[in-house]
């Protein structure tokens, strides 16, 4: 890749000015005259039949405008899956916007109250009387399935992924190693809770949803189906978003309710989730139980892997269907060359908060499992953990590397490019792995419980199918880039402006990037599964080139110079060989291209273009996490002394932003590895529904994260070679921390469950008589 002028540079973010000066506009900041406030009365039972609901006391409270149960909205169906992930088997498990007949987790919406202010609404919610009759509560996917509804069990699906001769490989194996592993239930917890405002303009017959995020066009399409209106009658708007992490911006019952209510009640309806609700109702994730085994030859080469997974989905199937379970299985072999593989998933509903995607969905889990297996093999065979990984990594000459599954309905994967051994080596070198081993030995001899671990992982991003962009230059040279992307705080505007600036030849600071507004552009891929920079970035790149071509064509005629002798620098066209010669600005070119212009000729009016980018396949960035931890044997406390992420992103549009993504991801990963866990008692009552009980790592727990970004394997699948940067930071953290703790306590295989809480670690040490 040729070095860019602004592409690839750590330039300052465009979006920060309002954010750091307190002038951002989050959903809580948006208000409309005469708005009502919605409050949801939620189930206090994990599983029960609703016998009756008495809303009379709530209705009677002054300031209450309306109170709804599911009977008031019979026409509104359950929250649908995203169009491209629909699955017939799972449809009966979707969540109604207000519970019908049964509640299935604590927090399940039962009654919606609409009142003059949020205080009255909350008072009214306390006055709703719901009579429940308890049903069997299932709190673990390990339990025997129960009844979801008559004739339907809580095991919603049984999924399989296979390739190669697994049984043959296990039969001839030198050693078979089996592990029983758990990944704990945790999730993204954005600083900003969810929020939604519905507003209906009867004058134009347009319904608006404010506070949406992540996948606005797809959500619009789902809502249009659910509400029975046309896409041009429903405008979905994104404001500033205080963190996404996969969970924010999916469609939830409350989003649907504010729209239905706005239209029916004739007043804007605002809903802001409180933290307590957030920790009981927003998507959770990660909770899986793995019975995993691996067959190896005498050199530690992997012959086959097998995994039986119990996936805890919670009370309903949300917008992703069984995506997370599938991603867990298909990425399980990761960046190792595994000849045979079989995974099965018992995809089960439980009476806990529903689950869906959380940053690196399925991958955080499967990397933990895979790397635990590899560490266990190393320990069993007496091999160095670095060496065993080297022996099993897919080699660069095997690229593109195909995973072809036997099942017809399972998507095959093709790893586009990569030099895994190279990155592994670079990471170990930068970390000083070999000298570190000496140091650890010394400190151990001095009585410290200290160790190092690693997690090698593969990521996936840039999934298509397609995204477009429209770029227009105005008569003063201002550039507007209209995209269907979304910004969750990751720096989307800056990245798109950099890509456009590079291709068009303008100052990136003069570019205004539009995103998250469905009334501005008919299609949009949104910002999910680390695809914004690849997909929308690809579209912005090709569109900017089209605008450039049009500008140069006009300029060539006006300046009487051949097109290929011209360049655009800072928004001005000039001759490459004669920068002091005649010039014309893009603004002036736009004027000459105005409708009716005398020089327009046969050209389409306006200096603008609209193009689409259709990548052939997904991209696969990859990385290495390395950790050094110190264990306090007396308390079971773990201190992360060092943590490093090395990641090949193909091409970094803005290295500072990539670093931000990686560091943030690492810290979140430390949360899942050591602190965060949504625990429930045996009655399905959530015990971590406040931030005093759900422990997010804070600055006090954050080590300095060392970062190595490499660009050794640009993707051949898009014009800029970009892979994705959003999820690599978190992917292998659990694996690396678990390995490091195992090393520190001198029991390489001991860590089987995340998070590694001090109590769990003490239990392990106590069992050893320590």
């Amino acid at each position: 890749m040729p070095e860019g002028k602004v592409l690839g540079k750590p330039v300052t973010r465009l979006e920060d000015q309002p954010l750091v000066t307190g002038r951002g506009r989050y959903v809580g900041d948006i208000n409309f005259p005469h708005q009502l406030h919605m409050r949801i009365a939620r189930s206090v039972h994990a599983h029960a039949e609703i016998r009756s609901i008495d809303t009379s006391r709530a209705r009677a409270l002054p300031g209450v405008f309306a109170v709804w149960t599911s009977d008031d909205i019979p026409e509104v169906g359950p929250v649908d899956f995203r169009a491209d992930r629909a699955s017939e088997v799972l449809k009966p498990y979707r969540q109604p916007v207000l519970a019908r007949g049964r509640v299935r987790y604590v927090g399940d919406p039962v009654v919606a109250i609409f009142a003059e202010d949020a205080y009255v609404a909350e008072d009214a919610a306390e006055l709703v009387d719901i009579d429940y009759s308890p049903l069997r509560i299932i709190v673990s996917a390990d339990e025997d399935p129960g009844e979801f509804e008559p004739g339907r069990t809580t095991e919603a699906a049984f999924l399989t992924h296979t390739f190669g001769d697994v049984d043959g490989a296990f039969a001839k194996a030198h050693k078979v190693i089996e592990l029983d592993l758990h990944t704990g239930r945790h999730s993204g917890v954005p600083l900003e809770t969810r929020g939604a405002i519905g507003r209906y303009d009867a004058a134009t017959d347009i319904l608006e949803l404010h506070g949406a995020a992540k996948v606005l066009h797809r959500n619009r399409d789902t809502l249009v189906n659910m509400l029975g209106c046309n896409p041009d009658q429903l405008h979905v708007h994104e404001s500033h978003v205080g963190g996404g992490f996969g969970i924010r911006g999916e469609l939830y019952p409350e989003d649907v309710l504010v729209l239905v209510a706005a239209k029916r009640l004739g007043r804007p309806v605002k809903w802001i989730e409180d933290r307590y609700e957030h920790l009981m109702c927003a998507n959770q994730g990660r909770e899986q139980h793995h019975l995993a085994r691996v067959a190896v030859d005498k050199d530690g080469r992997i012959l086959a892997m097998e995994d039986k997974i119990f996936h805890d989905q919670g009370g309903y199937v949300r917008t992703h269907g069984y995506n997370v379970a599938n991603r867990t299985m298909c990425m399980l072999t990761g960046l190792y060359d595994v000849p045979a593989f079989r995974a099965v998933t018992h995809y089960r509903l439980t009476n806990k908060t529903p689950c869906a995607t959380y940053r690196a969905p399925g991958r955080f889990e499967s990397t933990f499992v895979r790397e635990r297996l590899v560490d266990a093999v190393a320990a069993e065979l007496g091999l160095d953990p670095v060496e065993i990984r080297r022996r099993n990594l897919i080699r660069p000459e095997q690229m593109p590397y195909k995973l072809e599954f036997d099942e017809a309905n399972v998507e095959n994967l093709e790893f586009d490019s990569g030099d895994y051994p190279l990155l592994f080596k670079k990471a170990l070198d930068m970390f000083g792995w070999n000298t570190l081993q000496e140091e650890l030995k010394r400190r151990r001899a001095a009585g410290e419980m200290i160790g190092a671990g690693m997690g090698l992982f593969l990521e996936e991003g840039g999934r298509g199918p397609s995204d477009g962009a429209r770029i227009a230059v105005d008569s003063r040279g201002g550039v507007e880039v209209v995209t269907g992307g979304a910004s969750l705080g990751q720096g989307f505007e800056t990245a798109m402006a950099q890509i456009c600036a590079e291709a068009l030849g303008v100052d990136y600071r003069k570019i205004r990037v539009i995103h998250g507004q469905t009334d501005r552009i008919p299609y949009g891929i949104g910002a999910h599964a680390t695809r914004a920079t690849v997909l929308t970035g690809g579209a912005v790149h090709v569109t900017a080139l089209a605008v450039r071509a049009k500008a140069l064509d006009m300029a060539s005629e006006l300046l009487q110079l051949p097109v290929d002798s011209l360049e655009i620098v800072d928004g001005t066209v000039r001759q490459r060989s004669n920068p002091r010669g005649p010039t014309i600005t893009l603004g002036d070119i736009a004027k000459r291209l105005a409708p009716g212009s005398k020089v327009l000729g046969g050209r389409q009016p306006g200096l603008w273009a609209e193009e689409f980018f259709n990548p052939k396949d997904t991209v696969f960035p990859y990385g290495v996490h390395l950790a050094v931890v110190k264990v306090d044997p007396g308390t079971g406390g773990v201190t992360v002394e060092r943590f490093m992420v090395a990641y090949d992103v193909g091409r970094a549009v803005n290295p500072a932003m990539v670093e931000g993504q990686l560091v943030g991801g690492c810290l979140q990963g430390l949360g899942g590895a050591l602190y965060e866990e949504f625990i429930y008692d045996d009655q399905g009552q959530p015990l971590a529904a406040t931030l005093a009980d759900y422990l997010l790592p804070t600055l006090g727990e954050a080590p300095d994260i060392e970062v190595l970004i490499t660009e050794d394997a640009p993707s051949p699948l898009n014009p800029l070679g970009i892979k994705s940067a959003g999820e690599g930071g978190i992917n292998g953290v659990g694996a690396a921390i678990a390995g490091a703790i195992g090393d520190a306590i001198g029991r390489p295989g001991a860590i089987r469950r995340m998070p590694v809480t001090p109590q769990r670690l003490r239990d392990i040490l106590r069992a050893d008589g320590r």
Partner: protein
Amino acid sequence: MKPSAFRYHRPGSIAEAVDVLADVGPDQGRVLAGGQSLVPSMAFRLAAPSTLVDINRIEELGHLSVQDGSLVIGACVRHAAFHRSVVDGVPGPFLTRVARHIGHYPIRQRGTFCGSLAQADPASEWCLVAVALGASVTAASKRGTRRIEATDLIVGAMTTTLAEDELLTEACLPLPAPETRLGFAEFSRRAGDFALAMVLASYRVVDGRIAGACVAVGGAEDRPRRIAAAEMALDGNPPGAETFAAAGGAAAEALDPMEDAQTSVAYRRDLVRTLTSRALERAAA
């Protein structure tokens, strides 16, 4: 997380405050000090006081001084007052070290010493300090004023013997003799969290042997408590790792720890064993 409706009073003197409390106390009225425990519980609607009696503007409650060998701490003295040493000698810096474990910086700027005693959280550092050092408090009401020993005030988790109409006006903390050694250790999941267990240890060394030992444990049972068995393991023995470990073992054994979903009895015992010897080591240092 919006509190239910309440009335609000802001008396300017103790006399006015106890007047209002006599009125509203029996009817779910509550004193508002730093609000760092009360306001969150109102947001969760775990508390729904009919009336708040805000004592923050009562100047007479802001005093912090040494009287007759005791530190007297008025009801409006914040945790942050202890960020600097408030008395000379060992206890000053010791209280500073303890205070830093209370929540986070902004919480310490509002929360009060006396509010902590009135709240009686089992994991309150100040409750442990009060019980360990033999503090007492003064409670005022329209009916009069009385003095309550810390051990009689704190009778269970979030439970005190303060009457509904009483205002805790000050706490009185006897300062240990100058040669006393003090040590404190606690363990919490994250910096600023309520501790899962904490230990305060103090003793003197007379002729190379420990005398007047005090080992008090907080956060592990429903209220802080001195552990006689651990103190006996110390008194008369030379300070050192072995003695400290024995005291740790005795403390762990003597305990009847609380249990919750994330914290087992066995784990709390382990913590108390470890923290007791650490507190003793720190005292020795």
